[in-house]
């Protein structure tokens, strides 16, 4: 009997130990810098299958020009491997144009930067037909007639800003623009959103219709676009529809299931130099990161996965399961948005000194070190220092204009008529508009109490905002936190401006969505300009507008730095650290690093197994 008891106790103990070990993982593991890591080499073994975890949302549209109502960013993940953009963003770890993978051979600006001459590479479609300038004019004609129903359209830009498209020969496109642009801006932010599409196969209005020059009339372009949009939404025929079999990228779709599972095989006719080595790439959908981590740790099915930073504690366990882990900075801006026109607190946010005090009280270095374990951009201003370092100004690289400094924050408030009560409630004791008074619209006794709405679902975000709440309290500023699912947050936060204060969508005071991504050229269009699409809080400053326009239309390199430093100092948003992306990959799979900040796990034509 005693033997039985001992055995039973031992068995239970063993089981518990196994559970504890399995559930906790390790405390640390080697995470390489995905940007600086050199491309590891090894004997190339041709063939093999790579299975990639696809976390969160799955693609649902295959035509590369999705409608305005379809905001699923994963559609670009699906299509980019088959129809790459004219300008390919990211070369290895560098945030620059990848000339090798782009479809142009030369891009030249002339006529005071109002004319762009594009020379296309002598590449072919998968059916053997050449890629020609007609394929560009096909895209242009479709978008010209339908731009309001294209989700990547930016108001006033392509194709609205094109006066004329000419195609002097089969490989040359000449774009005459209505105004002069900064070449960096136009190449990096506009031409990088335009794929070439096979006019010889897609220029028809029905499945049985004749391919012709239907796109050359507005009515015809509308009909072609409507047909391609209709076909592009049919998930059941993504891999079988003859339309989608004509590609110019390195991959062809071989299977697509309605749950988001899909696979590629190499396009044998791909003309680029980086030809696929592996036989097949599978994208396997995961609804949350929990089963993804379990699948990785069971070591069976996954070769590559991206992980939320919350799971960084699993690094050791994953390393011991044969995986390598790399981090990559995200090109984007993370911030808390103040609502300058909220009825209760808008007057407070309209005061620059209050925004400055709030920023001085965000301990960004500590958030980076303690919450993100060092895997985050410092968030010193509007331009990320790590991901798009070439554009970051010396001011941002030096820590930004408002390094963590509670004493300065308190002094600022006191100098403007506030009674600062650390740990308590700071109140305005000197209302008025004088230099040493609280400012317009702020009443005596008004407290610095704000509600911060943020997107739920990430432990690191919870911890970050709890840290902000705590550090703001040092100057008597109260932050009330509330988290909501991202879509719920988006649905309740509307744009508020001086002219508009709808109760239903202007009730928010501070909001944090996570981050806003940048294209290659990280200027502030749409974020900080008056009426910008993402300018929810109603920030409006003629000087900022002028500086942003200068980054789009001016040719001087210094205009960007001038804009950047001005935005960093003016605080249209409160700058925050931006977490990095974490990629897990089988150690025997080479070519994954250095990670491209713009398409870290989509460059699978560069991947191979070692023999």
């Amino acid at each position, binding site marked *: 009997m005693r033997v039985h008891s001992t055995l039973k106790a031992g068995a239970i103990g063993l089981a518990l130990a196994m559970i504890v070990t399995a559930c906790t993982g390790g405390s640390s593991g080697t995470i390489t810098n995905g940007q600086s890591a050199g491309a590891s080499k090894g004997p190339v073994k041709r063939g093999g299958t790579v299975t990639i975890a696809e976390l969160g949302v799955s693609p649902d549209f295959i035509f590369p020009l999705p409608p305005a109502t379809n905001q699923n960013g994963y559609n670009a993940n699906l299509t980019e491997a088959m129809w790459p953009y004219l300008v390919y963003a990211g070369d290895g770890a560098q945030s620059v144009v990848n000339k090798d993978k782009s479809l142009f051979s030369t891009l030249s600006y002339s006529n005071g930067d109002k004319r762009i001459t594009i020379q296309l590479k002598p590449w072919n479609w998968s059916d053997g037909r050449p890629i020609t300038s007609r394929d560009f004019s096909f895209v242009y004609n479709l978008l010209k007639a339908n731009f309001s129903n294209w989700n990547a359209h930016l108001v006033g830009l392509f194709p609205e800003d094109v006066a004329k498209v000419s195609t002097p020969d089969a490989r040359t496109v000449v774009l005459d623009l209505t105004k002069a642009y900064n070449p960096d801006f136009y190449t990096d932010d506009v031409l990088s959103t335009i794929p070439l599409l096979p006019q010889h196969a897609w220029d028809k209005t029905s499945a049985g219709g004749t391919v012709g020059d239907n796109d050359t009339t507005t009515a015809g372009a509308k009909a072609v676009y409507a047909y391609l949009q209709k076909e592009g939404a049919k998930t059941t025929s993504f891999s079988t529809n003859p339309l989608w079999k004509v590609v110019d990228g390195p991959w062809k779709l071989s299977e697509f299931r309605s*749950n988001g599972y899909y696979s590629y095989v190499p396009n044998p006719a791909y003309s680029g130099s980086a030809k696929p080595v592996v036989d097949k790439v599978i994208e396997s959908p995961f*609804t949350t990161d929990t*089963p993804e981590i379990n699948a990785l740790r*069971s070591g069976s099915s996954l070769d590559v996965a991206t992980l939320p930073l919350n799971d960084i504690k699993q690094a050791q366990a994953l390393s011991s399961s044969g995986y390598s882990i790399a981090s990559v900075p995200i090109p984007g801006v993370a911030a808390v948005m103040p609502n300058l026109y909220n009825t209760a607190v808008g007057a407070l946010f309209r005061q620059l000194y209050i925004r400055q005090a709030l920023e001085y009280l965000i301990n960004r270095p500590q958030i980076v070190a303690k919450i993100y374990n060092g895997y985050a951009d410092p968030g010193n201003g509007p331009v990320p220092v790590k991901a798009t370092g070439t554009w970051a100004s010396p001011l941002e690289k030096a820590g930004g204009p408002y390094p963590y400094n509670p004493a300065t924050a308190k002094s600022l408030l006191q100098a403007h008529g506030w009674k600062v009560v650390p740990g308590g409630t700071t109140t305005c004791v000197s209302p008025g508009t004088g230099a040493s008074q609280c400012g317009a619209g702020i009443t005596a006794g008004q407290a610095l109490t704000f509600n911060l709405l943020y997107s739920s679902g990430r432990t690191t975000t919870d911890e970050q905002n709890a840290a902000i709440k705590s550090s703001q309290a040092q100057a008597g500023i109260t932050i009330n936190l509330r988290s909501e699912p991202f879509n719920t947050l988006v*649905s309740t936060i*509307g744009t508020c401006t001086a002219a508009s204060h709808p109760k239903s969508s202007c009730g928010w005071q501070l909001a944090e969505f996570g981050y806003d991504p940048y294209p290659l050229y990280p200027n502030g269009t749409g974020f900080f300009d008056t009426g910008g699409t993402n300018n929810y809080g109603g920030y409006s400053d003629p000087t900022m507008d002028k500086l942003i326009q200068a980054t789009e239309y001016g040719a001087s390199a210094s205009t960007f730095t001038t804009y950047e430093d001005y935005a960093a100092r003016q605080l249209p948003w409160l700058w925050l650290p931006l977490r990095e992306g974490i990629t897990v990959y089988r150690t025997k799979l080479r070519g994954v690093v250095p990670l491209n900040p713009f398409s870290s796990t989509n460059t699978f034509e560069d991947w191979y197994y070692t023999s």
Partner: protein
Amino acid sequence: MRAYLLRRTGQAVVVVIGVMVVTFALIHLEPGSAARATLGTRATDERIAVFNAANGLNRPLTAQFVSFVKQAAAGNLGTSYSLHQPVSTLIAQRLPRDGVLLGLSTLLALALALPMGIFQAVRRGRAEDHAFTVLSFGLYSIPDFFFGLLLIAIFSVQLHLLPSQAPQAQSIGGILADPRALVLPVLTLALVSMASFSRYVRSSAIITLAQEYIQVARSTGLPERLVLRRHVLRNSLLPVITVLGLSARDIVAGAVIAEAVFNYPGMGQLFFQAATSKDYPILLGSTLVVGVATVIGSLIADIAYSLLDPRIRYVDG
């Protein structure tokens, strides 16, 4: 019986319509805009207006509801705002998956709970009864997501015996063709349900065993095995029938937690994601299907009562 069934069907229609009215009102009372939730942070006022017009959201609520009812009556549940596919297609893809998972787990739970409950009733008050009671309460009190994670930690991560994910195939045939991947999710749901079912069976069997007809049966020399099978088992099933009838709703509504843990997108995940993204067509369509399943399950339970217990008769009128 026919009149009874007609009356119950009529009641069911009223109940389903009532559920739809309440659901429709609730989702529209919730603050926020479906257009903004769908179009994301870069939605312009123009795009929001186009979205609202295209989906009829700029019309009065009553008109929207009437349109939904008319379309639903014609078999059209609308198109998802966020997934851009017909709701009926989305439900048709996911419902069979939940049917397999929850159907198998329910069958396994019953297969385990019936003998266990009757065994406990027969051995009432003895060590075996106490042991199974502890087991039942233990299993019942463990949240299913935690139980699932424990099983994965042991059998997938540590021992590498079973896959951590449920089958990823789309068709029922494909799912059943991967039985190893079904083991952990089915076991997770079955053991928790078994704990619940076995308590009902035990209680019911204890009452049945105390009935005079059981003593009569025994006194006639009927073997105990036959007494249990013919008299106790049949009568002990009645309360379980009620639970099973109501669990038809669960089979259709999905198991959101188990679906998440085992990466098995079904009705539960579909409904959860629709709720967070204000995808009204999916919310209404799913509610309609679940409502119908609930009343049908309840009706089948009532009919099963009369079949199992001849004393129960449904009176017309």
